[in-house]
């Protein structure tokens, strides 16, 4: 082969290699786009909920009030009768069966929605006011176009009668979609239209805080000790090997650990962010130690020598100079470790965070779910309404992970600018 032929062959090989790279990247991008598109198309509808406008007659006589109308007396009053009376007026019904069907057009919370309205606007007492009330899950899904209408009636969740009412209401312009703040403010619920991630959001939040508070200081101290102060002998080598191994242990094993020790032996309250935080911190520990050690190793010896030569002790050298320079890498590693912890499901299931919890937890020792566990729970539900909620929760999770990664990149750049 002549020199020119060899050269041509080399160039061709390089071009081929570039193409392979490009194809790989494109494949990866396509997969990501498909995933994102899938989730977004399913989940975006969760951010709105269908409302039905109803003329509510705030007839004070139906409230059974004793004295004058005050906030307190309104809060104590029963609104069921008032609600039903107004709701049934939207369409003629000939028997109780049909009445029940009319009421089922609305979300079971209708009573409280009407009550809340009056409490916010007490001057509307004894007036007839149009109020928007959340539609039921079936109507919500119907309105979003997720229910096929051409199935025979006995295979449908919505009866013909209800369909008629719905079409009527649509014609009258009383069906509307509103931003679904329930998704964020409410906890879990049997009714999809009332279900929200409020509870699991707080649960994840507490879990991550506890995980961070436990794992970060321990990991940093351990790394500093191992890297700077521990004598270089077989024992430290042994510890290092084991830490690396710990990072590779499947997360469900940590769940077993949590179950076995925290719940069985130490009898911590089940299903709480406290236990979840402790369990996940065990898992996150090696994931912080490894980048932290790498960052410490990467600090050039010239800085250490400079500090020592001015009369700094070993301790001062490490904490005044080496550790600050190792911070960018450490923080990046920490945030990535936390992001991974945020998405952990298996260990949390084992320690019982699968409970159906309606109330939003206010402390880390209140039972709760976490975001990924919530995804798991909702994905198991039958109702159609939970499908969009599941996807929407995944969108939220992805959003948080992206934000955390951006924070990691930003912090890293900020610290590295100082270093340079």
């Amino acid at each position, binding site marked *: 082969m002549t020199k020119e032929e060899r050269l041509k062959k080399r160039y061709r090989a390089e071009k081929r290699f570039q193409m392979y790279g490009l194809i790989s990247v494109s494949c990866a991008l396509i997969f990501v786009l498909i995933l994102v598109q899938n989730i977004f198309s399913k989940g975006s509808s969760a951010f709105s909920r269908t409302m039905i406008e109803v003329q509510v007659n705030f007839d004070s006589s139906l409230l059974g009030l004793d004295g004058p109308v005050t906030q307190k007396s309104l809060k104590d009053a029963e609104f069921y009768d008032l609600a039903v009376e107004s709701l049934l007026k939207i369409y003629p019904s000939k028997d109780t069966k049909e009445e029940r069907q009319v009421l089922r057009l609305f979300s079971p919370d209708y009573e409280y929605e009407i009550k809340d309205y009056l409490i916010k606007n007490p001057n509307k007492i004894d007036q007839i006011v149009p109020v928007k009330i959340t539609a039921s899950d079936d109507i919500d899904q119907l309105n979003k176009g997720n229910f096929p209408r051409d199935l025979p009636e006995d295979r449908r969740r919505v009866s013909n009668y209800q369909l008629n009412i719905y079409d009527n209401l649509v014609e009258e312009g009383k069906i509307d979609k509103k931003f679904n703040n329930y998704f964020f403010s409410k906890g879990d619920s049997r009714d999809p239209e009332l279900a929200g991630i409020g509870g699991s959001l707080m649960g994840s939040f507490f879990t991550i805080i506890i995980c961070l508070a436990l794992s970060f200081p321990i990991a940093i101290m351990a790394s500093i000790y191992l890297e700077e102060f521990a004598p270089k002998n077989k024992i430290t080598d042994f510890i290092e090997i084991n830490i690396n191994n710990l990072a590779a242990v499947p997360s469900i094993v940590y769940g077993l650990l949590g179950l076995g020790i925290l719940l069985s032996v130490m009898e911590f309250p089940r299903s709480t962010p406290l236990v979840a935080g402790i369990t996940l911190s065990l898992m996150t520990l090696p994931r912080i130690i490894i980048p932290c050690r790498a960052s410490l190793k990467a600090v050039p010896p010239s800085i250490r*020598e400079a500090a020592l030569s001015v*009369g700094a002790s070993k301790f001062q050298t490490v904490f005044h100079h080496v550790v600050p320079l190792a911070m960018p890498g450490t923080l990046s590693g920490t945030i990535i470790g936390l992001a991974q912890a945020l998405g952990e499901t298996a260990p949390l299931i084992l320690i019982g965070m699968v409970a159906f919890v309606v109330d939003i937890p206010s402390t880390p020792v209140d039972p709760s779910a976490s975001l990924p566990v919530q995804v798991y729970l909702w994905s198991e539900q039958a109702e159609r309404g939970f499908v969009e909620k599941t996807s929407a929760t995944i969108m939220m999770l992805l959003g948080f992970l992206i934000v955390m990664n951006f924070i990691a990149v930003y912090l890293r750049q900020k610290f590295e600018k100082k270093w340079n």
Partner: protein
Amino acid sequence: MELNNSKIKIKTKNLNVYYGAKQALFDINLDINQKEVTALIGPSGCGKSTFIRCINRMNDVIDICKVEGSIQLDGNEINEKKVDVVTLREKVGMVFQKPNPFPKSIYENIAYGPTIHGVAENKDKMDEIVENSLKKAALWEEVKDRLNEPGTSLSGGQQQRLCIARALSVSPEVILMDEPCSALDPIATAKIEELIDDLKKSYTIVIVTHSMAQAVRVSQKTGFFHLGKIIEVDSTEKIFKNPDKKMTQDYITGRFG
């Protein structure tokens, strides 16, 4: 040949240094005179850097390094366990081959040493220390308006003078310089040599250099090292005009190798 009859600042006796099983310095007996510049020359790997690192106990950070023998500073033994290296390094400062300012502001670079030794009672006193150190290092005029900028934003020559100022900030008595100009251009080198000329009035300086011409220019006494031994040590004029040992002559005239 007349040696400057001044007091001896540093005295080593039977100094032997080992890196693990390998011996790096053999029976070094060397006197360093005070307020004078002593140059150490010799081919690479002959032990010059190892020697000066013994004087401020920097070899302590290398686990496998063993230092045997006596090193005396002002007549006090410094090669024993009970000596506090932190106090020693206040007295014996060091400037390295590649400038290594801290990744902090110019002010903080100088202020670090005095801060950890608790030398300055208040901010005014610290400002004074910083200003004096920078003036002594002939850097004040160039940086007085940008003390808060990072030390790494300076040029190579300025960074090295910053490191010298940093070493001066803790008021040492001895300054060790390990090839301080090898990473600098000729103009920066000239400024540092001028600085050394000035500093020797107040400090004892030991400088390791690969440049023969520099050794002649800046030092009053020169020691020639080879393979861990001192071959010849004498006044700089004698060494470079008429050395006693053939090996010394061969080295400085470029007949080595």
